[in-house]
């Protein structure tokens, strides 16, 4: 009897400790969101989304150029990175024991842990230094390199979740192996793969370091990937470290927009997953 009371006390104590840990873990996120809303929300208006920057020192202007720039850079990164990442993921899942697959898997795990500035440096060396000018494309290449291992590993894990019985059922119907993989296995895992892609996009959309010395940033509206391009994270960096009060205001607002975009992507990813489970009943 006494023992049971002691157990209950320990159990309750542990639950309290874990609850405190959860609060501590969530606190920074809430503080960041709160600060951003307090300092940035006031600066968000129509002009913020539709106008380009005004000359330094003047008030007003917006970050339309950076929104367009981020869309261009991340879009091009997806065009380069997604086909490679998804294909490599399918390969690693379908031929798990293949030496090439093992090596690729190991390297992808290493790459996921690589600091993004290293990837930026890589893009600088291979693209910027050779072409002798900064470009949005160099930024896209850096982001694509960051996306590939993330997309690859998610794709692989989700394909592995598809029951082997489905694969066998398709093979028993006379499906060739490649067709089983694409039409049955990948198709079944697709909602999960989309989720992984959205999360990877959310992750690289906020990357600053690899863009600093590749896309460089710009004050002008441009869609030219061959020239320096603006991007939301770069605007935050430039404006937050600049000397003008109005810049600081815009930096806060941009940071808020950036985090909202990332949150929306994450929510979209959740919804894509939820839909999958709904259909399974």
């Amino acid at each position, binding site marked *: 009897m006494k023992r049971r009371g002691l157990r209950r006390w320990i159990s309750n104590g542990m639950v309290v400790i874990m609850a405190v840990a959860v609060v501590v873990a969530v606190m920074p996120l809430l503080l960041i969101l709160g600060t951003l809303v307090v300092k940035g929300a006031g600066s968000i208006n129509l002009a913020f989304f539709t106008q380009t920057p005004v000359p330094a020192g003047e008030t007003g202007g917006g970050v339309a150029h950076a929104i367009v720039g981020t869309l261009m850079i991340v879009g091009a990164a997806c065009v380069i990175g997604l086909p490679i990442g998804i294909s490599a993921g399918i390969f690693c899942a379908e031929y798990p*024991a293949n030496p090439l697959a093992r090596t690729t898997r190991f390297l992808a795990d290493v790459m996921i842990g690589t600091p993004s500035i290293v990837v930026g440096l890589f893009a600088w060396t291979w693209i910027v230094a050779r072409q002798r000018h900064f470009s949005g494309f160099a930024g896209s290449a850096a982001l694509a390199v960051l996306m590939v291992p993330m997309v690859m590993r998610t794709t692989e894990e989700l394909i592995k979740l598809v*029951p082997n*019985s*489905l694969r*066998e*059922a*398709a*093979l*028993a*119907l*006379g*499906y*060739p192996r490649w*067709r089983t993989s694409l039409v*049955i296995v990948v*198709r*079944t895992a*697709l909602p999960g793969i989309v989720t992984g892609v959205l999360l990877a996009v959310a992750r690289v959309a906020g990357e600053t370091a690899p863009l600093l010395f590749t896309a460089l940033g710009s004050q002008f509206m441009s869609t030219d990937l061959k020239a320096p391009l603006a991007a939301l994270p770069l605007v935050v960096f430039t404006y937050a470290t600049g000397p003008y009060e109005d810049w600081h205001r815009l930096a806060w607002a941009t940071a808020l927009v950036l985090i909202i975009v990332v949150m929306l992507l994450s929510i979209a990813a959740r919804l894509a997953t939820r839909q999958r489970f709904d*259909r*399974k*009943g």
Partner: protein
Amino acid sequence: MTHLATEKLTAMYSKFTAVKNVSLTFPANHVHALIGPSGCGKSTLLRTLNRMHEMTPGGWITGKVLLDTEDIYAAGVNPMQLRRRVGMVFQKPTPFPTMSIYDNVCAGLKVNGRPARKETREIVERALRRAALWEEVKDRLDQSAIALSGGQQQRLCIARSIAPEPQVLLLDEPTAALDPQATQRIEELVFELKRDYTIVIVTHNLQQAARVSDTTTFLYLGHMIEHGPTRQLFTAPKNDQTEAYITGRFG
């Protein structure tokens, strides 16, 4: 008329021998049951009949499997084309979750160069009717196959297997995951289907083997112990091990 036969068939997983030197004949338009305790090799034997065994890593065979006197393991036989002639239904219902009921039935047709749309509709209806599922799903062919009950899903899988008009139907414990009522429907179906197909069924359920099959093979530890007409094997087994198994003394 011998339709399907094995000759000195041995099936291995890497170095483990699951089926040892089995020679069997399966005459056409009969139901054959493979029975025996877990691990006796009955599923492996079944999977050699449509060359699914070799899809398991390490799976290989020696000996022959003859389909209409043609060795299906001979060089030049395309296993994909073979599997369109030898359909298979698994223990767990395996409808393709991303496809509608209609597309599930079509799934095996598409690999053979899809027939014309009108013709496809007729094939789907015929396959579903034969699988005794048509009346239950005819109004919702475009809905997800996942919404069906377990028994309906299994009949859908049977419809999917027979839509491409195979010659042989392999059933690997097709009712193991189903309730008694659904089981009964599948058994009735098997009885109907033997008019058109040669059927080989693996089952753990001895009553089921006795009910649906014409001939029965008892396997133990990879060896074929006894093979004969079902009634004879169940009422007057020649082998002591067979008798011990069917009377429930081991297995």
